[in-house]
């Protein structure tokens, strides 16, 4: 009988300690997470900033790739439009069997 009571007490202690540890763990996690809002905000801000930079680069790229811009740049680099075009026609071999 005494042994049975001792065993039951041990089980109860174990359960209580486990519960206490779990409660403490939850408290610690909740405490940590509840103040993580600032990190989320910072990450969102960073993501927003990167998106803005990406958009700015895309805008700049599309402007630089425009044909009007390319034509102007070509002119600045000294390219001129060719007036004459020569067509190379394939030569038939002289000796044919």
């Amino acid at each position, binding site marked *: 009988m005494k042994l049975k009571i001792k065993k039951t007490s041990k089980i109860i202690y174990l359960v209580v300690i486990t519960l206490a540890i779990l409660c403490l763990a939850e408290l610690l996690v*909740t405490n940590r*997470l*509840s103040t*993580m*809002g*600032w990190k*989320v*905000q910072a990450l969102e801000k960073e993501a927003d900033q990167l998106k*803005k930079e990406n*958009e*700015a680069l*895309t*805008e700049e790229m*599309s*402007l630089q*790739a*425009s*044909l*009007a811009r390319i*034509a102007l740049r070509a002119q600045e680099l000294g390219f001129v439009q060719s007036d004459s*075009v020569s*067509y190379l*026609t394939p030569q038939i071999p002289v000796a044919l069997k």
Partner: protein
Amino acid sequence: MSINFKVNLLFVGFALVGITLAGRLFYWQIINSDRLKVTAEGQRWSFFEIPAQRGEIKASDGSSLANSKEAYLLYASLPQVDKAPAEIAAKILPFLENTDEEGLKTQLNRKNVLWVPLKHKVSRQAKEGIENLNLKGLGFEKEETRNYPEGSMSAHLLGFVGVDANGQDKGYFGLEGYYDLELKGKPGAKKWEKDASGKPILLGENMTEEGKNGRTLVTTIDRTVQYLIEIKLKEGIEKYGAKSGTIIVMEPGTGAILGMASQPSYDPSTYYLFEKTLYRNPAVSLAYEPGSTFKVVVMAAALNEKAVDEETVCDKCSGPRTIGEYTIKTSTEKYYPNSNLTDIIKHSDNVGMVFVSEKLGLEKTLEYLKRFGFGQKTGIDLEDEDSPALRADKNWRTIDLATVAFGQGIAVTPLQMVRAVGSIANKGKLVEPFIVKKVIDGQKVSEITPPKSKQIISPATASQVTKMMVEAVEAGEAKLAKLKGFEIAGKTGTAQIPLEGHYDKEKTVASFVGFAPAQNPRFVMLVTLREPSASIWGSSTAAPLWLEISKELFTYFGVLPGV
């Protein structure tokens, strides 16, 4: 004072306090409940709309013709503004394009409001400039604005994005208008619990409604062709002293529009600075009388019906024709007795064409006008397409049958004309012109299959008319400008412009329509110049311009001479 009196007085005091408390509670909990609820919600929740980015419009090579860029709404939080409205307006005005200073002052002077919008679509650079002024009470909210990297190129094709009655972005005209719903997308929303300092609570409640960015359109527009015809059209209008002009380049086998340009034009990013009359695309909406370019259509109809054939000789071509009170002459007042059909096209003989249309007859002529797509829209995917109506069948007179043979007394749009001639290039099959070939929705790409073409004349008829058109270029009016080694099928047109019930003698629409290489056409193109002052004739204005453009197109498409 008796004790009863004191007790009663205390009782009255407590009652008064109780009534006052009840009254205040009633005031705050009943009368002000809605306002407090909103304030509480505002303190507890962050609400944030995730705007949908408008879809892109791309050329056939994937380069961007229209996309969205960063912009801002400039607003003023009036309780925080600490300077006079006039001073603020004067300081921010230099950064804001096309803004009225009085309008800004009016907004800043408003009473009984906490927040006023000052200017939409402020650029990033302007935002930075205004932020550097450190003016209290001014803030920015992110929005987007439309960006057209190629400037005013393809303005009529693209249309523009304006605002509707609710202040929301909306596409008008061109592709922006036609595909507005696809391009718009759907905004999303995000709602989450926040703490006292405004930061999100990770373990709190949050809700997200996913939005959808607009779809991206990939068009058939060849950026190089478009750029070329825009430049050449501007140069041609200046050279020939024309008031306006249009060029359309189309793939005859599919109906894919490779290029479409009209002048005068506008810049879609600053459309509000231009006359509204410029917004409509003349290539698909402006009616004109096609003149002699129409002769190939009537000739094709007559040949297809076997009303005439290669052996037919015109026995009424020795001089002017009188029909009722009207006299039909040739444009040069030269006459070619016993002309065959090729001669009629080569000499652009009005009298010869009257002979042909009389052989075809009114009923068949009207049937073929409809077969070639005249009097109805082509179905192109542009918002502003229109079609001049054909005269009701019962209202056609003998003179109308005669004049339609040489393209007068009938109104068409440039797109209808190029499509009709395109059917001759395409072995008798009439296509439905289109511009968007692909729609991209995230990762999903949908190819748009163009509608099936209709066989409206036989391939043999198409081949016969092609030969006549080649002859017209080789030996006809446009022969001076032809390109050596390239077989071009084409026809000039010089149409008088109707003015108050009669035709103006000085003003014309000069045009040239054709396709090349004649036997295996890579493109069909129409050039029209309205009221050219250098010369009224299509052979001297539109034809050389057409040939100049085609020379560049041959090089670009890698078309060799002798093909």
